[in-house]
């Protein structure tokens, strides 16, 4: 950083420290942080103030940044930006209603969503160029967000301080549905509408019709939500330009609205709905990388029948599984019996937890819930059903199908079907052997 650029920051630090330390010292220190240790300016300033026993929140001059450089959890961010959009919202803070502003700032490098917590201190309109000082950033849904708090100052600048904002004309990125991940924007997909239905939703007090369903191509399937009526019908092959994706219930989901361009293709070669819905086996590792999957088929070894499998009892109020006859919320209750398997499936590439419901469990056991109740009564233990399941399933190759969601604890599949596989090991071994000898 040039010497003349560093001077205001040296002054800022010295002031924050109540002029207890000489500017010359601060300058030397700041220089060392920036040039020797190469610490970002904001961090360097906070660190110096702290080191001298000061309060970093007294710093008022942040490092002026461009939007593309913003990272989460930055303090004292300064920006020169244009207001791309601004809206009001009522929120309730400790029972008191309060108005905040939210919208988007842009500069030549990009855009960033913002929230201004003190609406009164900010009188700006769409198109204004503003100089923002001492804002801070957070991460929200995987994106950087700018926050303007009570120490942030916002000044209007001349409108020609920045070139007018022109939304970037970028070609949409072509994505196959199997590669869709949460948090993508401006994507282009081609898929067949497997199912679609409309429903009314309430968005910020306004009634809206959303069209949602399942879309698929040869690589995968995804839930979609269309926020405008593109007259899509079941069976259509649609090219959607300008969609976006987000993670919903642990799976990537496609969204698009009136800004998107939707075209119905007369593509006779496109895989039929039947082909798209026929099971395609995926490696669990692949599903993990994609952050979940809609209607995936996996094949692996069932390596564990976890605690909470077998004959269980649910709270009649909230359906939670009881522990020792007690619901976490409703206390001691008369539980409703149910059957399930909580299994760990490992295919050698990764593992997932699969939940198999009552019908599948009954099928695997070859006996009904009532039979299981009788067995348990006779054995005077509910655990006997879990043991039976473990004897039957542990170490067996299985094939499961269902939606896979992803969170911090890993992958979870709610299985729609499950079967123990009978594999012709000799045939497979022969194939592998001839393959090797080629």
């Amino acid at each position: 950083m040039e010497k003349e650029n560093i001077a205001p920051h040296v002054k800022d630090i010295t002031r924050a420290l109540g002029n207890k330390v000489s500017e010359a010292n601060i300058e030397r220190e700041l220089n060392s942080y920036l040039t020797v240790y190469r610490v970002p300016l904001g961090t360097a300033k906070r660190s110096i103030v702290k080191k001298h026993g000061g309060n970093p929140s007294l710093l008022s001059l942040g490092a002026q940044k461009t939007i593309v450089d913003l990272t989460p959890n930055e303090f004292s961010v300064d920006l020169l930006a244009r207001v791309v959009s601004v809206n009001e919202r009522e929120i309730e803070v400790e029972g008191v209603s309060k108005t905040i502003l939210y919208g988007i700032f842009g500069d030549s490098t990009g855009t960033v969503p913002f929230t201004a917590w003190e609406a009164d201190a900010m009188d700006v309109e769409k198109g204004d160029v503003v100089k923002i000082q001492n804002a801070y950033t957070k991460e929200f849904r995987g994106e950087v967000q700018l926050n303007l708090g009570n120490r942030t100052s916002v000044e209007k600048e001349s409108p020609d301080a920045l070139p007018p904002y022109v939304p970037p004309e970028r070609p949409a990125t072509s994505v196959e549905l199997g590669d869709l991940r949460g948090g993508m924007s401006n994507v282009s997909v081609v898929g067949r509408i497997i199912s679609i239905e409309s429903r009314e939703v309430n968005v910020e007090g306004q009634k809206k019709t959303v069209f949602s369903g399942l879309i698929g191509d040869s690589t995968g399937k995804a839930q979609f939500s269309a926020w405008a009526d593109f007259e899509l019908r079941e069976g259509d092959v649609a090219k959607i330009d300008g969609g976006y994706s987000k993670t919903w219930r642990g799976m990537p989901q496609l969204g698009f609205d009136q800004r998107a361009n939707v075209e119905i293709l007369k593509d006779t070669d496109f895989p039929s709905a039947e082909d798209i819905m026929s099971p395609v086996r995926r490696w669990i590792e692949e599903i993990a990388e994609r952050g979940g999957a809609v209607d995936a088929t996996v094949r692996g070894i069932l390596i564990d029948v976890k605690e909470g499998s077998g004959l269980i009892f649910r709270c009649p109020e909230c359906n939670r599984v009881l522990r020792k006859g007690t619901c976490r919320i409703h206390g001691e209750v008369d539980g409703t019996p149910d059957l399930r398997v909580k299994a760990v499936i490992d295919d050698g590439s990764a593992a997932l937890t699969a939940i198999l419901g009552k019908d599948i469990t009954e099928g695997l056991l070859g006996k009904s819930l009532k039979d299981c109740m009788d067995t348990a009564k006779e054995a005077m233990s509910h655990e006997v059903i879990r043991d039976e399941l473990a004897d039957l399933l542990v170490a067996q190759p299985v094939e499961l199908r269902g939606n896979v969601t992803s969170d911090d604890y890993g992958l979870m599949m709610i299985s729609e079907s499950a079967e123990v596989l009978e594999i012709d090991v000799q045939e497979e071994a022969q194939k592998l052997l001839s393959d090797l000898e080629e």
Partner: protein
Amino acid sequence: MRREVAWRVFAKEYSDSDFQFSEGGERSPSYVVTPLGAKINRLFVVGVITDIDNVGSDDQPMWRARLSDPTGVYVLSAGLYQPEAARTLSGIEPPTFAAVMGKTRVYSPEEGTLYLSIRPEIVSVANDAVRNYWTLECCRSLRTRLDAVAEAFKMDPLTKEGLVALGHSERIADGIVRAVDHYGTVDLDRYRLMLVDALKYLLPESRPAPPEEKDEEEESELDEYVLELIGKLDTDGKGADWETLLEASKKDGVQKDDLEQTVNSLLDNGRAYEPVIGKLKRI
């Protein structure tokens, strides 16, 4: 925190390893890296438990078991902190097929010496079919890594990104880069041979033939047929010629092996004898 994958790796490859690492940090897992780049924290193995001993005391048992697969032997040890596995092991009588999920366990009495075993989390009794399927999975895993390591040896410089660009997963690529860094160029042919042997192990024609059990009725029919043929061909009273017998029976669709076997049994039973070598006579 992601669950660690359970590797399917043959005992031989596992026991060839002498490299362990941890990414640092108090709770980060440690891994054993095999010469072919399997980066193992957890394993799933199926084989035959051949012996089990309590190497602890009666009060605090520590079960040590040996589990053999087509390539070698895994050592399992389960004690106080693996109650479920210990309980199952204590009830097993060798030989028994068993499926084991567990974590790598490394004992290093001195620098450079590693004793590898498995600390089982789950032990369950299995069967032949489960063992065979596991063996197949091990072969597949081995095959993938053999190919990847062969490619890695050709790369200069070898990087994880380079391997990923060739289509290998992050997980495989990371393990291989670490393995090559530690072990250098290993002899892949040795492992290729192991792979072929393991595959042949799964194929019936390559297995040592079990003693053939023939239908008893069929056997006696063949006995009678050969005996009659010997009588018919013994035209000069000096016995039937072996070569003529062979030819005649061949015409009737009898295999040479079967003929030899039948003749031997006739000789053993004392229903025929060899007056001179190459001649056969009914008794």
